[in-house]
């Protein structure tokens, strides 16, 4: 093989290797990024991960940024999840009680058939905002299952409280009330 051809093949192999390495690094960074759950676990909370998701009912999309100025409860749920049935009335009650004080309850339906989720919402008489997530927001918030709940304050920053499991779980009750209080704080 001539020297030039050899160098060309070696260069091409190096470029290919660098591309594969870059792809691997990109994947690792995006998989283990700074999720909301990790921010809270490490005590370094900042702006809540942004999202724009379709409404479950009625069409249109809603972004988290559009809720700036409100205290936000972000509840991830699915129609097949049993604990979600039990906590849905609690979320509904909180929404009705605190909406005048600037609270927005956002139920994000994840890992679910959207028609099943709509049937669930109708059956339980849910009137709070319901969005559907095809998966990316679930990952960005670092969920390991449903239900899980986060709180976002009026400035769009994560409140350092993360409820893994239903809000009415004994271990979560005090945190649930504290989360709403911190989200509504000016």
């Amino acid at each position, binding site marked *: 093989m001539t020297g030039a051809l050899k160098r060309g093949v070696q260069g091409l192999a190096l470029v290919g290797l660098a591309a594969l390495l870059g792809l691997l690094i990109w994947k690792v960074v995006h998989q283990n990024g700074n999720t909301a759950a990790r921010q809270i676990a490490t005590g370094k909370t900042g702006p809540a991960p942004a999202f724009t998701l379709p409404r479950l009912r009625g069409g249109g999309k809603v972004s988290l940024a559009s809720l700036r100025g409100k205290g936000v409860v972000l509840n991830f749920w699915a129609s*097949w999840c049993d604990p979600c049935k039990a906590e849905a009335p609690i979320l509904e009650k909180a929404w009705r009680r605190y909406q005048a004080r600037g609270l927005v309850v956002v139920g994000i339906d994840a890992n679910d058939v959207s028609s099943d989720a709509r049937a669930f919402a109708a059956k339980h008489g849910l009137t709070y905002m319901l969005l559907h997530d*095809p998966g990316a927001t679930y990952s960005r918030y670092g969920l390991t299952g449903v239900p899980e709940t986060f709180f976002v304050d009026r400035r769009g920053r994560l409140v350092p409280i993360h409820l893994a499991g239903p809000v009415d779980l004994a271990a979560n009750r005090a945190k649930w009330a504290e989360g709403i209080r911190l989200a509504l704080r000016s």
Partner: protein
Amino acid sequence: MGGRHPARASLVSVVAAVLALALAFAAPAVASERHPTLNELEGEVMCPICHTTLDQSDSPAAQRIKAYIVRRIRAGDTKSEIKRRLVADFGPGILAEPAKHGFALLAWLLPIGGILVGAVGLGFAAWRWSRSREPAAPALAGGAVLDPELDRRLDDELRRFE
């Protein structure tokens, strides 16, 4: 009109055989697309919670997706339509096989590219190896480098075999 040319006849036979083979494979594929079954879709759709195909999972999420697939089959959806609906609800990760377009196409092309590059590399290495052995043969055949003492001993040895 004369008799059929033998070469043309064999070509026609080959083309007919290839067409028959293609049809044999295409017919079930078309049937599967138009009238999918839960069994085949269970192996092509993932459970988003357990990260296995549906046929490996009995979780509540998997059961809901199976029930949804059955409903869509009864409604007359094709396999592609069902998959499109699932991707709209769950994202592309719901499919066991990566999509054959966009960035996911790399998952199909990279292994094929790797195999091709490997095959070319192996072929080239084999070609180089065979070429590097060629010049050695004439040198030995010419006997220019053979030690006279070794040459004599070889002749003795060979004579013993005669």
